[in-house]
């Protein structure tokens, strides 16, 4: 259900509802992720950790939360 103050965003390819005013930093923190272990792509652009606090999510924003894993 979309609340009055909620909005729809796409996180890692899945639609999610978040409260209005949620920032990228808040999105990361809400998942219990340590900021130094993840990489954020916001609407197909790379955003540095210093910018996360200042980005307030808007309807239909696309956020990718990524990290390095083992690979060859």
């Amino acid at each position: 259900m979309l609340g009055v103050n909620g909005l729809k965003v796409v996180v890692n390819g899945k639609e999610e509802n978040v409260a209005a005013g949620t920032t990228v930093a808040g999105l990361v923190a809400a998942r219990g992720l340590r900021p130094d272990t993840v990489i954020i792509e916001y609407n197909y652009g790379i955003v540095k950790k210093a910018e996360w606090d200042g980005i307030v999510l808007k309807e239909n924003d696309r956020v990718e939360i990524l990290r390095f894993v083992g690979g060859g």
Partner: protein
Amino acid sequence: MKDLLKIGGKEITSRLFLGTGKFSSNRLIPDCVKASGAQVVTVALRRVDLEFEEENIASYVPGECILMPNTSGARNAREAVRIARLARAAGCGDWVKIEVIADNRYLLPDNYETVKATEILAGEGFVVLPYMSPDLMVAKKLAEAGAAAVMPLGSPIGSNRGLKTRELIRILIEEIPLPIIVDAGLGRPSEAAEAMEMGAAAVLVNTAIATADNPVAMARAFGLAVEAGRLAYLSGPGEVREYARASSPLTGFLRE
């Protein structure tokens, strides 16, 4: 005599590059890096799985290593470029292994898209090491596109089948003025040694080490094999002959 491999302005002493996938525990990775002597270590970039808490692989790679993110998961040049840019922005440095794969059974790379991605990323200042199916004309195009090295496969990724593309790799070594790094498929240290004896500049090994019963010991075995193969190459192996040639003098026999 110092025998350094120079790529992207860096001088590398170890010609064994190590992949970090498929280890039963990430805790094995620092020990395998140490045992193998590897300086160049690959990682991949993936979406965080919120259901399954994973660790940050980079924290298991010793700080003195060159971290080389791959673009695995990319199905075309555009996706590979996106992954490479993200990895660099995340502080991974300028090195990138281009891996563009749209074939799920044999995981063979798309050479055409790989050339396109190489051109774009080299133009953006990346040190580009493209993984490719060994083909002379493609290797020439990769060199023209600004690749720092060319990484032909020995056999399909993770197959441990060895140096099945030997002859094509031999031609690349002969004709391409860039380091040729055999990537994928090497399953035994002897196969890594053979690639090095042929004149490969380095090899990249992951599955054969990560899935061995004792990965740390296997990492050391590959390190030794790569060193032995390189030394043999530099030593100029003797001629191969059809018939026997006695090693002992053919005179002064103690005969009746």
